[in-house]
């Protein structure tokens, strides 16, 4: 066999390998594109509907997937609608409270569990993880009674008490993971440098584990912002409601669906998580995966 045919064969093989790879790549892109389109249909439809007038929605002429006369009147209505403002304010208040309470509790506990230890701390760490596995819908009925005993039925403040139970176990869990990954020598160095435990926590651990704290904060935020069952079960007057239930109870009256406004409200209510996600995607993803990879 002459050298040239060998070479050309080798070239051909390399060529077909390269071609295969290109095909695989394009196939992946196309398949991913299909998935993205399917996944983004609902948000897209939300936007389309939110730009329509009630007249256009009920006219049912032409494609519902298009908007003929885009208008911002739904958004304007909501922004100037006092109830919607209350829902938004309540949501923001409760979420901020939840995040602060949850982070304080879980950072303190995680520091103690990962570094200091006391009798039974091991069992407590396991307990924290198991608590994380308890879904909100398991305990909402006894909690209804407890909230009632505390006199907080139909008070938005009961959420600031209950939401941390949903956020704290997971936040503690991932903070334990982040704190444990800080080398032990760092606290020993701080100890020799003369730091007490609280100084160690505030001057060393919190700054070093900042990415973890951001991830946990985002988690607490999403939990508090999106929760639906507790407010639906414990709140019933408009002035106490948060966004998730307010939109449904206020804009759906009997059989009259103001879909344009509902969709606009959904968009406005989804805005904070989307914005946070857009800017802090890496932390968001880190928090999401931390539970499994660190557990």
């Amino acid at each position, binding site marked *: 066999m002459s050298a040239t045919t060998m070479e050309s064969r080798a070239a051909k093989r390399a060529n077909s390998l390269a071609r295969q790879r290109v095909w695989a790549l394009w196939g992946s892109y196309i398949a991913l594109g299909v998935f993205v389109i399917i996944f983004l249909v609902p948000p897209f439809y939300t936007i389309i509907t939110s730009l329509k007038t009630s007249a256009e929605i009920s006219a049912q002429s032409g494609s519902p997937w298009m908007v003929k006369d885009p208008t911002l009147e739904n958004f304007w209505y909501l922004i100037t609608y006092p109830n919607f403002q209350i829902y938004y304010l309540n949501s923001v208040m409760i979420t901020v409270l939840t995040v602060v309470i949850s982070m304080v509790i879980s950072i303190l506990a995680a520091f103690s569990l990962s570094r200091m230890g006391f009798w039974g701390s091991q069992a407590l760490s396991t307990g924290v993880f198991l608590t994380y596995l308890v879904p909100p819908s398991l305990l909402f009925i006894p909690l209804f009674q407890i909230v009632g005993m505390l006199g907080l039925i139909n008070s938005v403040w009961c959420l600031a008490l209950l939401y941390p139970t949903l956020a704290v176990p997971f936040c503690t869990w991932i903070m334990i993971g982040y704190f444990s990954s800080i080398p032990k020598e760092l606290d020993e160095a701080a*100890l020799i*440098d003369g730091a007490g435990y609280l100084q160690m926590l505030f001057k060393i651990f919190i700054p070093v584990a900042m990415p973890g704290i951001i991830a946990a904060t985002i988690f607490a935020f999403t939990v508090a912002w999106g929760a639906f069952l507790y407010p639906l079960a414990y709140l019933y007057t408009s002035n106490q409601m948060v966004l998730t239930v307010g939109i449904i109870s206020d804009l759906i009256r009997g059989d009259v669906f103001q879909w344009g406004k509902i969709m606009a409200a959904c968009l406005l209510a989804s805005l904070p998580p989307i914005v946070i996600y857009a800017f802090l995607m890496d932390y968001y993803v880190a928090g999401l995966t931390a539970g499994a990879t660190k557990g």
Partner: protein
Amino acid sequence: MAEVRVRKVVKEYEGGVQAVKGIDLDIKDHEFVVLVGPSGCGKSTTLRMIAGLEEISSGEIEIDGEVVNDVPPRDRDIAMVFQNYALYPHMSVFDNMAFGLKLRKFSKEEIKKRVDEAARILDIAPLLDRKPRALSGGQRQRVAMGRAIVRNPKVFLFDEPLSNLDAKLRVQMRTEIKKVHQTVKTTTVYVTHDQIEAMTLADRVVVMNAGIIEQVGSPQELYHHPKTRFVAGFIGSPAMNFMPCTVVEVGAGLHIKINDKIVLPVPPDRVERYRPFKNKKMIFGLRPEHLFEYTEQGKPGWTRVDMLTDVVEPMGMETMVHFFVEGTAICARVDPATHAAPNEWLALTADMNQMHLMEVDSGKVV
């Protein structure tokens, strides 16, 4: 600056495992003492007990005349350099060095003065604004030392500070540490598993093994007069050759008999020392550097042995020759000019003036 006294110190972990089995050690003011030994020998535990990071099970540790058993680390006035440097990743080099001073409420000017001084000694002044992650391994090491220096403590503690550096940098930093000690003269306790580091740095070396101190002495002492087989084997590189032997009397003098063919005369000045062990099974020890190529013009005590080489490793300035004696691997260090080749007979000289003789059971050098 201060003396450190360790008296009958025991470290026992839960479950009765003793990591340190009652050691005594006096470290003088300004002294540079290196604890050396294989991993698990208790050297790090000893250091951490001096630092106050481990509780002392029994015994006493004294720093500057004060028993510190119950003193927490921050009040012991010590500074420690860790193996992985333990620099605070979120603080600049300056803040890393200043942290201990800030916690002790030093004035801003004093802090700045001390940090600048330390940075000057360590040649890291241009790095003060950087974060640790922007530093090379050697630079981090310097910062870690700087953090110790600024505190001007009674004692410096080093826990394997060079293990994470590559070979070249390690040699360089070794010199650096020595230089710093000569400048600041702070009493220093330094832990390493690397005997070369120990030999080059120490005023006195403490060889530890299995929770006890095998021997304390100057590097020269340990090299020439090891007290136990462990020390003899641990100090020196490549390690000393050990061969089972019998001490026999042939004619006028004593001889070391390894097998029927290899019988080596004991130098006359040692005959009396070794006579009590006549006809006993002993261990004969000879360093590779005292087993070298045969030359015509020998010296008193040089004895010729012929060996069948197994593996030959040219190292440039010398050549290591490996062979077997009675199933034991033996190493000799010969001049590259001898052109030793594998599986050939090679004439060697054993410098019997440098021999060691040990008891089989106790491992004691006699």
